[in-house]
């Protein structure tokens, strides 16, 4: 009788990479549904193109590079869907496709594939698209079924006045496909927390620090509530800042990283030339993340831990 000799532990958690990524896809579903509900078929096409082209790019790259094809881990699908959700529904399909290709090939695969990229692929792609076609990315249609879509407004943050809190919460505002309906984002967050896909630390501290910093510099509670409910802050805090590969691992480092995102977002929004700062805030924090992990000392049992006096 021959028995298997393999090292402990002999059981593993049910959470695989594919299941965690699947959880993210499920958590994104309400946002995608809200986007399609508010913006119609165009939004559905954008999401389908962005997701499919990200998966295709990963498949083709891994085939050409003679690597094991890992599209079944769903990480490319998550990146693709995220790209679709953070662009305007009026963006032409080929622009989205370029974004997905760039995210997967340049930002992810050229740096070593899943886990080795230092920037969030979806946000890096958005930054590139924003630099290449600034007007296409930021002109958002007004929302509503009977509104003619040529009635584009400027980006919502540039014309924020006169929008009610209710509209902000339910997504009765212009904006990127997945970012407008805050309720959908919160449902997604709840799902990610319940399934323990992410911890509360990064989303809560990111939004909280943006709120507090805005309150400190503006002195207005109203303005601060609007600040956290508008633009891409909530979406970014829940789905982008929590990206595994590009956020720090230690809890202290995660706290600093989150505060950094919150503060930079507000700084860019208030004093920068761009009306929206979440993308750049997270990308900057991504770059800082490895440094934070490295330079914030670990607490190791028996090495740096608390040392209680032992009575002799």
């Amino acid at each position, binding site marked *: 009788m021959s028995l298997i*000799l*393999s090292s402990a532990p002999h059981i593993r958690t049910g959470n695989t990479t594919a299941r965690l990524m699947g959880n993210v896809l499920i958590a994104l579903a309400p946002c995608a549904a809200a986007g399609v509900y508010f913006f119609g078929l165009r939004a559905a096409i954008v999401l389908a193109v962005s997701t499919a082209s990200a998966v295709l790019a990963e498949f083709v790259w891994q085939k050409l590079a003679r690597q094991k094809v890992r599209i079944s881990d769903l990480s490319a699908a998550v990146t693709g869907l995220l790209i679709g959700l953070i662009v305007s529904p009026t963006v032409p399909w080929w622009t989205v496709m370029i974004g997905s290709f760039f995210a997967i090939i340049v930002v992810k695969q050229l740096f070593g594939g*899943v886990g080795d990229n230092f920037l969030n692929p979806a946000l890096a792609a958005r930054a590139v698209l924003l630099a290449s076609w600034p007007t296409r990315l930021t002109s958002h249609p007004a929302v509503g079924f009977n509104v003619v879509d040529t009635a584009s407004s400027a980006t919502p943050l540039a014309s924020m006045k006169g929008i009610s809190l209710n509209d902000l919460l339910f997504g009765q505002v212009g904006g990127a496909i997945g970012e407008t309906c805050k309720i959908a984002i919160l449902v997604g967050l709840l799902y990610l927390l319940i399934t323990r896909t992410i911890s509360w630390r990064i989303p809560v501290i990111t939004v909280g620090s943006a709120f507090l910093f805005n309150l400190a510099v503006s002195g207005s509670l109203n303005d601060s509530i609007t600040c956290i409910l508008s633009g891409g802050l909530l979406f970014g805090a829940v789905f982008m800042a929590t990206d595994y590969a590009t956020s720090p691992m230690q809890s202290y480092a995660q706290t600093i990283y989150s505060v950094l995102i919150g503060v930079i977002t507000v700084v860019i929004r208030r004093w920068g030339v761009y009306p929206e700062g979440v993308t750049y805030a997270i990308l900057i924090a991504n770059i800082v993340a490895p440094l934070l992990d490295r330079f914030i000392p670990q607490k190791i049992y028996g090495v740096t*831990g*608390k040392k209680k006096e*032992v009575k002799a």
Partner: protein
Amino acid sequence: MKGTFRGGVHPSHKSKNPTRGVKTREYVSDTVKIIMNMNIGAPAKPCVKKGDQVRVGQVIGEAQGFMSVPVHASVSGTVLAVEPIPYLTEAPSMAVTIQNDFRDEWVELNPLGDVEHVDPALVIPAIQNAGICGMGGACFPTHVKLSLKPDQKCDTIIVNGAECETHLTADHRLMLENSRRIVDGLRAVMRALDVKNGVIAIEDNKPDAIAAMKQASFGRQGVKVRPLRTKYPQGGEKQLIEAITGRQVPSGGLPIQVNVVVLNVGTCAAIADAIIDGKPLISRITTITGCVRKPSNLRLRIGTLVEDLIGECGGFSEDAGKIVFGGAMTGLPIPNTAVPIAKATNGVVVYNKRDGASVEEGPCIRCGKCVSVCPIGLNPFQIKAAADADDLEKCKALHVMDCILCGSCSFDCPSRRWLTASFKNAKQKITLQAKKAAAAQQGGTAK
């Protein structure tokens, strides 16, 4: 207040413990193979030969030095063989095979009587002569742990009844069925070391054991029962000490450096048997579960072969893929069923071919789960990268030597990475390197 520690995981317990509510039964096999190896320290030297008649409790292997304990016959009968057999260690281990005559004739015993009145100076020698070593899995000679150097002090003895490993219920059953003996053993050690404080620590998923131990320790001087939060690896020595005393064992150090000695519940009961009845350690409770028809807790003689105890449990219920000594998180796989159980074998778990299959490792996605579950506070993903690159210096700098090999990181890794296995390997290599360096230095000074 329930004691606990940071990090850790929750491998599911209930579904895997069909032996929880089942009373322990005794099983004695036709033959036993008693190995001479201890996990640490010199193996005992066989002092019987083929054809000898032996009685239960007779010394068949003599201790070799301070770090070693004698080995006793666990049945009466005829010595069939004294030969090396393949064991869990790399090198074969010397073993004495005895044909049981089922007469159960004991050697003359030398009981010391009640633990509250025994001369404290006699306790530690009695423990050594009874062949007692850590029964929680490490098999470290107990008298060594208890022989304090002049500069060492002990103020607390912790009895480890956490049993945080999956599948195992042997300690749980012992606490229910033999509670008094555990308290007796603890009291004997407290008196031997003149310690005022004895704590029996039990995870709160065993309320019946907590109640039984509370009842048994009622009115016993200085003995307390402390519930612990159920979380793996709560029974790890370092985690247990922190949960009970708030102290941390210094890196590379021993519990006695924070004035604590930790003993397993089984070890305590064996100490009581040695003092009160004068009996050496010849049997223990082992949980047999997994793919067997009748999962059980058996009181087994040391040296019972796995094939015999599987038979006693109704045989395999499915094709066996892997058999592990111990729980799922830290257990050691055995090469075949002709292997005997030893003093520290607390469980024999049978996995079918599917569950026993080795899993394939995927790329690290840097999710950070290994970091958040590590009870020591290490960065397992970084150490793994260094270990894969065979960079032992970097492994050391990342504190791989502080890793307790609990398996939490591997358990929680969504990419199924072999973290713990690579740390074990790196630790062994580093230890070997240090030994070689020490030997080279000694050789140098000798010249």
